[in-house]
C-alpha cells in the first residue's frame, strides 16, 4: 500500500509539473510580445504593460518565469485579471456552484450507470440491453454543444419544466437540468464500462462459489459481483472529472450559471490571459489531486493492489 501511494504520488508530481509547464509555456514562451499575448488583441497601456511584466517576470528566462508563477500559485496568489480583479476572488466566488453542479452530475451519472449497467449485463442480449446500447450510442453522438442548448430550449423554454437559467445560489431543482446535461457527457462511457465489467464478473468462478453457498441472486450481484465491477468504474471516474470540467465550460455558459466554467469561458471571450492561465492551472491541480484520491479509492476497493 505504502509503495503504491508513493509511486502514485511521484507520478502525480511529475505529471503536475509537466502539465502546468505545458500550459504556462504555451501562454508565455516564444512570443514576440508576451504582454500582448496575455492581453489578446486589445491595445495595452504602458502601465498595464509594466504591471504584467513585473507580475510574470517577463524580462527573465522562461524557467524562472515558471518558477515565480508556480510559487505564487502554490501559495494561493493568483494575481489580477486584465480587468483588474483578483483572480483568487473570482475563483472563490464561482467554485461552490460548480462543485454542486458537478457533484450532482457525477451522482446522477454513476447511479444511472450502475442501475442500467448491471441490469443490462444480467439481461445481455435482451430488448432492454439493446435499448441501453443504442441509447448510449446516441448520447456519445450528442456533443454537449448540441445537448445543452437544445435541452435548454426544449425543457427550459418550450415545455417550461425547468428554469432555463440558474443563479449563484441556485436550488437543487434549478441545477437539475444543467446537471442532467452535464451527466450525459460521462454516463454513456460509465454505463458501457459497468455493463462490460459486470458481464465479465458474472462469469467468474467466485460467482459460482457464491451461488453454491446458497446466497440469493440479489446478494450475489450486489455484494459479490458489484464490488469487483466497481474497480474499473472508479478508475473511470478519475478521467470523468476532466470531462466534467470540460462540459461545465459549455453547460454553465449556456445556462448562465456563474460558476468556474462560465467565468473561464468569459475570460476566453474577453481574451483575458492571466485569468485563463490562472483558472486552468488551478483546475489542472484540482484534477490531478482528485485523480490521486481516486487512485487511493481504487486501492481501497482492490486488495490485490493494496498489498502489492
Amino acid at each position, binding site marked *: 500500500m505504502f509503495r503504491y501511494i508513493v509511486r502514485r504520488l511521484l507520478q502525480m508530481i511529475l505529471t503536475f509539473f509537466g502539465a502546468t509547464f505545458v500550459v504556462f509555456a504555451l501562454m508565455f514562451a516564444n512570443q514576440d510580445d508576451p504582454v500582448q499575448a496575455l492581453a489578446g488583441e486589445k491595445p495595452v497601456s504602458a502601465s498595464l504593460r509594466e504591471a504584467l511584466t513585473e507580475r510574470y517576470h517577463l524580462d527573465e528566462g522562461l524557467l524562472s518565469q515558471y518558477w515565480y508563477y508556480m510559487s505564487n500559485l502554490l501559495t494561493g496568489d493568483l494575481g489580477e485579471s486584465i480587468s483588474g480583479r483578483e483572480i483568487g476572488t473570482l475563483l472563490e466566488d464561482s467554485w461552490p456552484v460548480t462543485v454542486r453542479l458537478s457533484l450532482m452530475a457525477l451522482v446522477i451519472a454513476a447511479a444511472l450507470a450502475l442501475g442500467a449497467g448491471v441490469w443490462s449485463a444480467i439481461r445481455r442480449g435482451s430488448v432492454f440491453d439493446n435499448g441501453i446500447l443504442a441509447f448510449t450510442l446516441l448520447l456519445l453522438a450528442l456533443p454537449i454543444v448540441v445537448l445543452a442548448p437544445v435541452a435548454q430550449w426544449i425543457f427550459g423554454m418550450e415545455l417550461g419544466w425547468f428554469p432555463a437559467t440558474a443563479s449563484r445560489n441556485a436550488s437543487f431543482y434549478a441545477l437539475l437540468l444543467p446537471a442532467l446535461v452535464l451527466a450525459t457527457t460521462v454516463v454513456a462511457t460509465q454505463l458501457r464500462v459497468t455493463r462490460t465489467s459486470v458481464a465479465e464478473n458474472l462469469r*467468474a*468462478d*467466485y460467482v*459460482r*462459489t*457464491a*451461488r*453454491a*453457498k*446458497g*446466497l*440469493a441472486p440479489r*446478494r450475489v450481484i450486489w455484494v*459479490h459481483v458489484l*464490488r*469487483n465491477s466497481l*474497480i474499473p468504474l472508479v478508475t473511470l471516474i478519475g478521467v470523468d472529472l476532466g470531462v466534467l470540467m470540460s462540459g461545465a465550460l459549455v453547460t454553465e455558459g449556456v445556462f448562465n450559471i456563474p460558476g468556474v466554467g462560465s467565468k473561464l469561458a468569459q475570460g476566453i471571450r474577453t481574451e483575458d490571459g492571466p485569468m485563463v492561465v490562472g483558472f486552468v492551472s488551478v483546475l489542472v491541480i484540482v484534477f490531478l489531486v482528485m485523480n490521486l484520491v481516486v487512485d487511493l479509492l481504487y486501492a481501497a*476497493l*482492490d*486488495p*490485490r493492489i493494496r*498489498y502489492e
Partner: protein
Amino acid sequence: MTDIKAQLDVLPGLDPRAPLLQVNDLHVEFRTRDGVAKAVNGASFWLNPGETLAILGESGCGKSVTAQAIMGILETPPGHITRGEIRYRGVDLLKVREAERRRVRANRVAMIFQDALSALNPVYTVGFQLAELFRVHRGASRADAKSRAIELLDQVRIPAAKSRINDYPHQFSGGMRQRVMIAMALALDPEVLIADEPTTALDVTVQAQIMGLLAELQRQRNMGLILITHDMGVVADVADRISVMYAGRIVEEAPVYDIYARPAHPYTRALLESIPRLDLKGQQLTAIRGLPPALTAIPAGCAFHPRCGYAKEPCRQDPAPPAYAVAPRRTARCHFFREVLGE
C-alpha cells in the same frame, strides 16, 4: 442452528430413511450458437452417508456439469436439465422451489471447487466470505459469525487462524486456500460434500495433505463425499466406490477394489492401463487412443465404440448398452463385459 435444520426437514417428502443422494437418468444439455452439446446423457448413481464415491473420467466427460446440476448452480441458459431426478433423502431437488433449493445448498449439499484462487472472491477477506454463511443462513451476529469462522479455520488447520481471518485470498498459499474452501463448504455441516478436483491445482505433497484432511473431516462428520477427479491414483486410497463416466454416462460402477482388480468396461481398463505404475517403470505408457467424442455429435450405440478394441457390430447400433449387472452392487454398460473381465 437446529431450527434451520428443522425448517429444512419440512421439505415436503423428506424421508430420513431414504438414500442420502440418488441421481437417476440425469440429462443436461447446453444450447449454444454452435448447436446443442449433450454434456450429461443419463447419469445415474447413489451415495450413502459416510461413503466416498469417486467419479472418474477424461476431461470434458461431464463430471463438473453433473456436480453443478446437483448443486443447482448450472448456468441457465445455456445449460438445461432435460430429464432425470436428483433425490436428496427422497425429495427430488429438481421439483423444489428455488428459495427452498437455496437452503439445501451449503446447508445439506456443499461443494469444493478446483481452483481456490479464482473460486474465492478476490476483494473480500476470507473471514467475510466464511462469516457470510452464518450471517445469511443462520442470522448470526457479526461477532458470533466471526468467532465461528475462526473455529472453522482452526478445524482445517490453518495456523494462526485468528489473525489470518482478515487476510485476502491472494495472501494465502495454494494449499491454504484450498483449506479455506473446505472450511467454507463444511461451515453449515452439510451431509453431502462434492469435491470437484480439489487437488488438481496443487503440488503433490500438498495434494496428499488436502486429501488426508478431507478424508478425516468426512469420517468425523459421517458425510457422503463425491470426489470428482481424472486421477486414478488419488482415488485408490480414499474412495469406497467408483463411477466411471464417459461422454455423459456412467459406464461402470463398482467398489474400488473390484475395479482395480478386474475392470468390466474397456474404457475403465484403458484408464487403468494409462496410470504410470512403479512396478512397470521404464515401460511405455499406454494412453487411450483417439479422442472423446464431440458432445454435439455423440456416436450411436456405445459412445466408446470408435476407440474400443472389443467393439463389434452391436456396439455401433442403438440402443446404447444398458447397465448390465456384473455382480451384486456392480454394473457396466458394455455388451461384452464378460469378455473384458476375462471370463
